[in-house]
Each structure stands twice: as structure tokens, then as C-alpha cells.
């Protein structure tokens, strides 16, 4: 690779302490009174890298830590461990002042078009907010309104919309406002946390098309978080599949959809409903539900629901290993293909 990736994340971990106040955490059992400190292991060593103009998607079910990865990279949360390199600089431990120039390189689009816009701000103020933090010189500030007007036009809103409040817009229009806000500082990387999952399908298509056009126009890189495989298939260049805070499979899109290797990826693909007549696809039906991130299973995190799990899966945590074509998989089946009975 000649060019440093826009985003390069290594072994990112994010743990949250939960359990509220002192009294909630006090536990009495046979060993006497002790103070519990429950930890949610939301992200457990995730690595990924995105080049300029590239779209990487993270997929997984609720609670798999994909949104936490996004928000930790955006430094809404303080990472517990690991490196987050933006243009080669590790920002994982940056303070507030150091982060400010980074914010001009990295912006975010949120899931909920209703909760992501302050109901008491006008559209022009919402969109200008990141830009105004970056421009402290008066002459440059004078140019802000014009830039905002241009941005609004670019995302498909018009000038008269600038003076309105969010509640006067539909979900799709609000998401356009959120996109304009992220674009205001002309970032190189946009982290999109489920940007279309709250939208109706016809509007979803509009927003996906817009995001693709913007990528081509500005050379943006996206980290695209989604639970919807068909959306991911449409937009992503490469895909990481997450389960319980681990990256279980990571591959270029075409490789992943043509040849999914991890049983969880295969189950996800077979479970996704489709309007097309059922393709000839192996069906892996998962039983049970995702274990708690408070108390991770030993060995492979997926073994409790995996139809192929055997002894080794409980003893040893599988590591991501390269299986060629840019695909890497964290599964013991790779070393024991005879157990993959289908």
C-alpha cells in the first residue's frame, strides 16, 4: 500500500463499568460481602483499516459492539485499549484540544434522524456547528453561511430550509441534514452509524445513493455500521462481521458474499429475508440467543450458538487468520475442515 490508510484501528478494546452506585454493587454471598464491579466487554480487540475512498462496513446483530466501535473511533467514548490512527496519527489518547483538528478530518452520521438533530436549533445552525468550531477567524466565518447554503443544496435541500427547525422535516430530509453537518468540515472519513436503518425503504435508497455519490465526489472513506446485509452488500467495498465484541470475519465484499467462511456469517446470510425467490443457499439456523457481554463464554464467543462447535471451541479463543483473497476468519473450522459437515 503506497498511501497510509485514512483510518487504521489496531486491537481496539472498549469496556464499560456498569452497576450504578455503591449500594447496587454490594453483593452478599457465601464468601461474605464484596463489592462487585461488573464490566461490559463491548469491544474486544478489533482491528480494521480503511483507505481513502473506501467503504468498510461493520455488520452484526444488536449488542455485537459495532456501534461502540464507531463511537469509540469518533472518540465519543474513551477507548480502553488499542490504537486509532487517523492519517497515521494515533488519536486514542488525544486530549480535547488535540482532537479538534482531527474532528475536521473525521465526522459522523447518526442512526436516529429524530434524536440526532437538536430540536431547538435551526437547520443552518445545526449544519454549521462543526465548521464554526474549526473557523475562529472572523473573515473565514463570514464565508460559512454561503458554504452551508451550498452544502444544503448538495444534499438535496433548498435555501429556504435553512431557517426551519428539524420537526418540520421528514425522516429522510433530516438524515440529509445530518449528512450536510458531517460534510461541513470537508472530512476525509465519515463514520456512519446505521444511517438508513430508521428510514423507509424508498427513502433508504435515496440516502444510500446520496452517500455513494458523495464518496465519489469528495473521495470520502466511510466506516458504515449496519445490521442489514443487503444494504452492506450494496454499499461496501469490504465487510467486517462482528459478534459479541469480536471481529469474526473480515473480507472484501464479493469474497464474503460468495464464500462466507465463518458459521456466523453463513447464518446471517441465510437468515436475511429477500424479495427474490430463495437463492440456492445453505441454511444454517441458529438456536438460542447472544450471550451477555458481562460474562463472555470461554474460548470462541460464538460456540454457544454454533452448530459446528466442538471441544476445542470451548478451550481456545480462535484468532483471525488470513485465508487468502484478503479474507480473514476467526474460527477453528479453518484448521479442521472435516468438521464442516455441509
Amino acid at each position, binding site marked *: 500500500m503506497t498511501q497510509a490508510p485514512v483510518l487504521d484501528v489496531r486491537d481496539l478494546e472498549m469496556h464499560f463499568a456498569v452497576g450504578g452506585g455503591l449500594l447496587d454493587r454490594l453483593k452478599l454471598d457465601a464468601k461474605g460481602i464484596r463489592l462487585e464491579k461488573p464490566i461490559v466487554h463491548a469491544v474486544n480487540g478489533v482491528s480494521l483499516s480503511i483507505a481513502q475512498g473506501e467503504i468498510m462496513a461493520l455488520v452484526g446483530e444488536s449488542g455485537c459492539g459495532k456501534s461502540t466501535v464507531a463511537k469509540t473511533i469518533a472518540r465519543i467514548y474513551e477507548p480502553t485499549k488499542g490504537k486509532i490512527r487517523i492519517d497515521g496519527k494515533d488519536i486514542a489518547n488525544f486530549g*480535547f484540544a488535540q482532537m479538534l483538528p482531527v*474532528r475536521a478530518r473525521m465526522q*459522523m452520521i447518526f442512526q436516529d434522524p429524530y434524536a440526532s*438533530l*437538536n430540536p431547538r436549533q435551526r437547520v443552518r445552525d445545526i449544519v454549521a456547528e*462543526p465548521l464554526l*468550531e474549526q473557523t475562529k477567524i472572523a473573515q473565514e466565518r463570514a464565508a460559512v453561511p454561503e458554504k452551508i447554503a451550498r452544502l444544503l443544496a448538495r444534499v438535496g435541500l433548498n435555501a429556504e430550509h435553512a431557517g426551519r427547525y428539524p420537526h418540520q422535516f421528514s425522516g429522510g430530509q433530516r438524515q440529509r441534514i445530518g449528512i450536510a*453537518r458531517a460534510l461541513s468540515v470537508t472530512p476525509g472519513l465519515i463514520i456512519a452509524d446505521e444511517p438508513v436503518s430508521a428510514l423507509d425503504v424508498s427513502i433508504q435508497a435515496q440516502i444510500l445513493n446520496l452517500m455513494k455519490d458523495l464518496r465519489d465526489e469528495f473521495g470520502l472513506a466511510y466506516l458504515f455500521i449496519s445490521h442489514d446485509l443487503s444494504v452492506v452488500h450494496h454499499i461496501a467495498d469490504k465487510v467486517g462481521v462482528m459478534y459479541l465484541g469480536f471481529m469474526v470475519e473480515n473480507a472484501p465484499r464479493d469474497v464474503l458474499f460468495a464464500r462466507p467462511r465463518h458459521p456466523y456469517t453463513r447464518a446471517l446470510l441465510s437468515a436475511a429475508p429477500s424479495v427474490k425467490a430463495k437463492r440456492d443457499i445453505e441454511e444454517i439456523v441458529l438456536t438460542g440467543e447472544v450471550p451477555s457481554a458481562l460474562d463472555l463464554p470461554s474460548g470462541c464467543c460464538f460456540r454457544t450458538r454454533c452448530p459446528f462447535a466442538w471441544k476445542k471451541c470451548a478451550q481456545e479463543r480462535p484468532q483471525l487468520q488470513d485465508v487468502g483473497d484478503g479474507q480473514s476468519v476467526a474460527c477453528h473450522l479453518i484448521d479442521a475442515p472435516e468438521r464442516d459437515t455441509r
Partner: protein
Amino acid sequence: MTTFLNSEFFHNYTRSSSAIIGSTLMALFAFAVIAGPFLVAQNPYDIASLDLMDSYKPPVWLDGGDPRFWLGTDGQGRDVWASILYGARISVFIGLVAMIASCVIGTLLGLIAGFYGGIVDSVIMRIADVQLSFPSILIALFLMSAVGTGVDKVLIALTAVGWVVYARTVRGSTLSEIEKEYVQAARVAGLPNHKIIRKHVLPNVLTPLIVIATIQVGTFVLIEASLSFLGVGVPITQPSLGLLIKNGFDVLFSGLWWTSVFPGVAIMMLVFGINLFGDFLRDELNPRLK
């Protein structure tokens, strides 16, 4: 203005008799408080305008009533009607100022507790809990006996009692606000904490306070009246409605009822009006009831 007249809020207002009665009472008191001194000839605090010959005149519709004093006079020949108008000024002044002070201090502490969490939060909220476990009149009484009497002391006591409810409400709303994506968006935009609080949290936690603040003015008028009645409130030179009741109470059983009953009715109408209107606001502004 026309948008307001066409709003759902105004529409519901015109259909709510309690809201209309409440706001009418409040408007009457507002008028009386502002224009009071111009409505009556006598200034009850100007000794020169008092005449002991006029003492204990009954209301005008009773035998011996004097047309100059339609609600009668007290022992110093003070017009009860004029005393009520002047007393209401003090009562309302105390209620409003203490409410504003409580609101500002409570909101600030609630924002800090909710936004920063941790130790700060624990300290502020435990103080609030302790405070809430005593009746507010008791705390006010205790404080008044510690710091002495006077309008400023009453204000301090009421504020010390009143901030808690704002702090708790604002803390709760703040906790849910800072989880919202627009606050996260502001962080990603690079806004410093104080700007996030000012631009994104504060404007969105204020609505429930309108109801609390309205009702609290009524509560404060009552507490102040109780304090003054117990003799630890405002000084005799600045008699509020509560002190008027106390002054009249001494002679109540001598049949001279008008000196305390009319100020009592005035307090009742004031608080009643505030509460009626506050209830209407609560129904209108509470999104859960909609």
C-alpha cells in the same frame, strides 16, 4: 402573535375553564401588585396618613362601616384593602424572586450533576435527598432562626428549600439528554463541554421547569406566610399577607375578624389561581399525557 392565537396551546387554553380562571386571578394579582399604590388613597406604611380615630372600623356593609375603608381597618386605623394591596406586593415579590433564585441555582446544580456524574453528582444529589427528607417549612424555620428575620433572610431560606426540585428534575432530564445523538454529534463537532451544556442540554431540559416554577411561586407565598405568621418571616415594617393574618389573628376572637380573614382570602385566591394555571400547563406541556 397570530401563530400563537392559532396554536393548539391557545386553543386548549380557551377551552379550559380552570386555565382561564387561574390566569385571570393571576392577572388580577399582577395588576394589583403593579398598580396597587395608585388604587388606594392611603399608604398604610406612612404613619402620617394613619389616624387612630379610624381604628377597627368594620367592613362597609356592616354597622359602623366607613365608606373610605370598604374592607374595614385595623388597630392603627390602617385600611385593610390598602394593606392587602401593599402586602400582596411583598408576598408576590418574595415568591417570584425566591422562585427565580431557586430555579437558577437548582438548574445549574442539576446540569452539573447530570452532565459530569461521579462524585460531584453523588454529593449534590445526597444533599438534595437529605433536604427532601425534612418538611420544607421545618428547614425554613430552622434557617430563619439561625440567620434572623427580614425579607432577604426569607429569600435565602426559601431558595435553600426550593432549589432541590429543580436540581432533581434537571439532573434526570440531563441524563437522558446526554445520551441523545445530537449531544454526541456536538462532541464529534468538537464543542467543549460548556458549549454542549449551554446549546444542547440546557434548552432541552427547561420545559418541565415551567410547570414547577409556576406552582412553586404559590408554594413559596404559602411558606412565607407561614413563616411570617409564626413570627420569623418579614419584619413588621414590611408586612406581607402572612404577617397581616398574624396581626389580625390576635384580635380575631374579639369579633374583629376582617383584619385577618380578608388577607387570608387574598392568599387563597392567589395560590388557587397559580395552581389552577399550573395544572393546565402541566397537562399541556407533559408529552406523556398527550
